[in-house]
Structures are given as structure tokens and as C-alpha cells.
């Protein structure tokens, strides 16, 4: 039986500091995040939130490999512990990572929640820019971009995380997820003008489907910053390691389209459940050359070019996606959709997945309000026609970057009228409210209620300082416990953390 999926997205944002001679992205990221946190603290009536709660690194092991070994010590440290690193009352982590501001969403129990807390993240970055503008000297501004490339060969990620059953052999995950990642690009891509790979294999690349395909060089591996692999093997479950695996997905684009974020999470939920239930049967879509296929598909705007499979046959990306959708429908009919966020959300994933595949087959441009790469193509085509621009014209490269600018009124994604799945009011509320259906509820609400009594927090534990006694670590190894339903009534009823822990028997 497939396990209920838990979803999360981590986004590293591009950052520019204008009005200074020599911008330093690490310093700018710190200023940006600190500006937000200090305004939050000031706005809090009681001043209680001025107790800034930091991240607890106790359980970070980025060197552990899902294939069963550890490379402790052979990698550069992934975490820079001295930099700003905060936990928010919506259960998210907001910090400086690799010279970028990064927002890691709280754990979500369905893909629509995933979209909502991703949008909350966008709003937190917008609020941070506004706070920084008020604190910086006149003439300076910090601007963030939700994209994955500077068009000069430097890339930064938007990672998805999925909780799944540890007992599934990792080889089975690779076998079915790799073809999905290679082929989902046709609907998941955020689009990019031109190419940053050393070679395109002879293809002329004017516009490509994804931001990230150029930066992937391996099939499977532990790296995230160089020689990036299509399947990342980092093995940090941030949960009971005897039961769970967290699949850490590094290949996706940062989407401005909510429909794409919804599909990215929702479809992966189905794919992983089908892996867990051994639902794929004998059909094997393993590409003969996965990295080559990845780029070939990203470079092919006709969506029609077949790629070679390891078994000697050929298929198109659409073929594989239709096959996976058919399997998912049968899986849902037989198993119900509790494991993928419930019947309503699951049915919506299947409906949209089908609708998008149909449109890609018949009239891709009809998806200009749903897919980033199509929205960009529509925009670039209009400019090319009006101003007679060649694809290499800097104006198109500029538009390609500004599409991802998050500032209201400046963002082209907003102006192009992309379909919204969550309202502004919901997103505003999710900036400070955690998802009620995961342990993020416990984390976020404790931070809101008892900030002075929390020494540190991370994904799977919280450290309480109750004064006069040793620090008390509360483990949260089950991501679907600590919910509003389970601990909500007690948590909201207690006046301090000591009483809460006593009543919870912790």
C-alpha cells in the first residue's frame, strides 16, 4: 500500500543589489532576510517574536547516500551555519544558502497546499524586498527573481521533496522516476531563451522548455552544485529513517505558474505511489542516454521528436506522459486517492494533467495562461513580430529574466495573466499560518505561542528552553502527526511550553 505523500518545495531565489559598486550576494541575502525578520519582530505587539528562533543543525547529514553509503567528509559543507537561518511561524525555513535567499516551505499534505505555501514564500520575499528598501540607503534596492539561471552558466535550484516508503528499493525509484523527469519537461518547464550547455548536439536552440536541463550531466548521484544528477540520492529523511525516505528532487524549474507547481507536485505524488505499489508493470521507459534525452526534449519546441530507449525502441515525451496518466487513472480507480491528498485534489491533478497533455498535442499556445514556457513564447513572439527582433536580441534575454522578477507591477508573469489556484488572501494568511495537516502545525504554532521558550527548531525536532532545567528536545519523526487535529486543542489551551510538554507527556 502506497504511503500518504508529504510535499515540500525549497526555492533559491536569484538576487540583485542595485545602487552599489560591488554587490555581494551573501551580504545582500542576509540584509534581505534580516529586514523581514526585524520588521516582523517590530510589528509583534507583545514583542515576543523578537526572540528569533534559529535553525538546529543536529540532524543534517547531506552526505548520506540513498544507495546505501555515506560520503561524510568528502563533500564541501552544504550548510553554512553562521549565516542567517530562521524558522517562521508558518513552519517554513528562511535562510541564506549558497549566496541566495532560500525559502523552504513547510511540510504539506497535498499538492494544492504545496502551491499555497510556495505562494506564501513568494509573498515573504516580496515583503522582504519592501522591508529592505525601507532600511537601505536611498538609491539602493535588493530585487529577487524566481528563476534558475543567470544565462551565463550559473544555476540555482528549486527542489521538490516527497516523503515515501523506505522499503521500496531505490533502483525501482530510479527506473520509473527518471523517465518521468525527462518527459515531464514538456509541461513543467519555465522556459529559457537560448542555451547554456557546452554543446547542443547540433540543435539550434532559440527558446527551450526548461531553465535547468542545460545544467545536468549525470543520471544518478549525490551532488547538487556541480555535475548535477537527474536523480539526486541525498538521503536525509528528516523523519523516521526506518520507515521513510525523502526523495530530494533537484531537477525542476522554479515556476511562476501555479498550475505547473500544482502539476509538478501532484503528478509526482501519483508516480511515487505507483512505484510503491509496483504499478508500472513490465514497460520500461529508461532512456538509452538520459542526459541526452533530457536536453533533446528541452530543446524541441515541436514536442514531437522521439528519443531512444534503452530497449532499442523510440518514444516521444508525450507518449510517456500519456502512458503514465493512463496508469495513474487505473491506480486511482483501484486504490482511491487518500495517499495523494484526497479524492478532490487527486481528481483535479488527473483532470489538469489530461487537459494539459491534450492541449500540448493539439494547440500548445492555448496554454499561455497555464505554462511558463508557453507564456514566454507568446510574449517573445509578440515582441519579435512587433519589433522585428532576432532571437539573440538582448531585449528577449532581458524579458526572459524580468518574467521572474517578483516585484508587484514589475513581474511579467503577473502581467501576462497566468491562472491562479489560490487567492491573495489565502497566500497572505499562509505567510504566518502553518499547514494544519502536518507536523508543521506544531512547529509553527509553538513558535507563534511560545517564542521565548524555544531554543531552536528543525524539520524533525524542536528544542525547548523551559528555564532552570536542561534543554528539552521534542522529536517529531512522523510528518503527519503534530497536526491541528491531534495537538491543536491542547496547544491552543496551554499558556506556556512547559505546561504543553507536560500535557503531551513529552
Amino acid at each position, binding site marked *: 500500500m502506497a504511503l500518504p505523500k508529504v510535499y515540500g518545495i525549497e526555492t533559491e531565489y536569484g538576487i540583485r543589489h542595485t545602487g552599489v559598486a560591488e554587490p555581494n550576494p551573501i551580504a545582500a541575502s542576509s540584509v534581505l532576510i534580516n529586514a523581514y525578520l526585524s520588521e516582523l519582530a517590530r510589528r509583534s505587539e507583545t514583542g515576543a517574536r523578537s526572540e528569533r528562533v534559529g535553525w538546529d543543525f543536529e540532524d543534517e547529514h547531506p552526505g548520506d547516500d540513498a544507495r546505501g553509503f555515506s560520503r561524510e567528509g568528502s563533500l564541501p559543507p552544504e550548510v553554512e551555519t553562521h549565516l542567517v537561518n530562521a524558522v517562521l511561524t508558518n513552519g517554513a525555513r528562511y535562510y541564506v544558502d549558497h*549566496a541566495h535567499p532560500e525559502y523552504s516551505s513547510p511540510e504539506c499534505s497535498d499538492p494544492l497546499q504545496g502551491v499555497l505555501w510556495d505562494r506564501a514564500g513568494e509573498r515573504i520575499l516580496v515583503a522582504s524586498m519592501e522591508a529592505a528598501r525601507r532600511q537601505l540607503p536611498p538609491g539602493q534596492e535588493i530585487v529577487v527573481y524566481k528563476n534558475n539561471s543567470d544565462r551565463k552558466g550559473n544555476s540555482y535550484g528549486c527542489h521538490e521533496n516527497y516523503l515515501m516508503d523506505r522499503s521500496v528499493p531505490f533502483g525501482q525509484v530510479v527506473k520509473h522516476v527518471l523517465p518521468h523527469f525527462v518527459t515531464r519537461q514538456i509541461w513543467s518547464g519555465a522556459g529559457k531563451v537560448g542555451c547554456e550547455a557546452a554543446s547542443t548536439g547540433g540543435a539550434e536552440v532559440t527558446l527551450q522548455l526548461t531553465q535547468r536541463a542545460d545544467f545536468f550531466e549525470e543520471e544518478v548521484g549525490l551532488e547538487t552544485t556541480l555535475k548535477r544528477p537527474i536523480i539526486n540520492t541525498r538521503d536525509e529523511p528528516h523523519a523516521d529513517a526506518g520507515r521513510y525516505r525523502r526523495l530530494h528532487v533537484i531537477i525542476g524549474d522554479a515556476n511562476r505558474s501555479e498550475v505547473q507547481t500544482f502539476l509538478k507536485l501532484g503528478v509526482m505524488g501519483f508516480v511515487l505511489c505507483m512505484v510503491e505499489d509496483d504499478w508500472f508493470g513490465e514497460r520500461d521507459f529508461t532512456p538509452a542516454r538520459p542526459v541526452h534525452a533530457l536536453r533533446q526534449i528541452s530543446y524541441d519546441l515541436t514536442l514531437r521528436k522521439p528519443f531512444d530507449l534503452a530497449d532499442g525502441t523510440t518514444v516521444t515525451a508525450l507518449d510517456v506522459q500519456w502512458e503514465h496518466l493512463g496508469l495513474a487513472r487505473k491506480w486511482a480507480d483501484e486504490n482511491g486517492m487518500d495517499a495523494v491528498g484526497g479524492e478532490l485534489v487527486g481528481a483535479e491533478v488527473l483532470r489538469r494533467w489530461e487537459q494539459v497533455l491534450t492541449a500540448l498535442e493539439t494547440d500548445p499556445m492555448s496554454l499561455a495562461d497555464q505554462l511558463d514556457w508557453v507564456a514566454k513564447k507568446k510574449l517573445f513572439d509578440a515582441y519579435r513580430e512587433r519589433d522585428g527582433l532576432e532571437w539573440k536580441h538582448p531585449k528577449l534575454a*532581458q524579458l526572459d529574466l524580468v518574467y521572474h522578477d517578483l516585484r508587484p507591477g514589475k513581474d511579467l508573469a503577473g502581467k501576462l495573466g497566468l491562472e491562479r489556484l489560490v487567492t491573495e488572501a489565502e497566500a497572505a494568511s499562509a505567510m504566518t499560518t502553518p499547514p494544519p495537516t502536518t507536523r508543521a502545525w506544531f512547529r509553527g504554532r509553538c513558535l507563534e505561542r511560545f517564542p521565548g521558550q524555544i531554543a531552536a527548531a528543525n524539520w524533525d525536532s524542536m528544542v525547548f528552553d523551559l528555564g532552570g532545567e536542561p534543554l528539552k528536545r521534542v522529536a517529531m519523526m512522523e510528518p503527519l502527526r503534530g497536526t491541528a487535529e491531534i495537538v491543536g486543542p491542547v496547544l491552543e489551551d496551554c499558556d506556556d511550553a512547559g505546561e504543553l510538554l507536560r500535557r503531551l507527556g513529552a
Partner: protein
Amino acid sequence: MAEREQIKKTSTRGTEEVVDDVPTTSKKGEELKAEMDDLLDEIDEVLEVNAEDFVRSYVQKGGQ
């Protein structure tokens, strides 16, 4: 294929309209083009004037 066709049709709104196989829009091509032209003008107002300088100055450190 039959199943796909069916879903395409049921997703079309309204009961009295004639359901067309090809997605249609109520707006004429010229109207759409005029809207797009207005949008491009609006976008031009928020873009930094020198596209080349902007693109050159957008440099990031690599991340994950």
C-alpha cells in the same frame, strides 16, 4: 482516444451553446493583437532602458 475526446467536451462550459471540436474564442484576432500591443507598451514602461546592460549585470553565484 475516445476517452480523451469525451473529457475535452465535458469540460466545455454551458449547455445551450453548440460544442465545437476546436477550441474557439469569442475575441477576434485583431482585438487580441491590440490587447497584446497594449501589454507590450505597458511592459516597455517597466523595463530598464538598456537591455544589454541589464542582461550583462545579472550575474549570480551558482547554487544547488
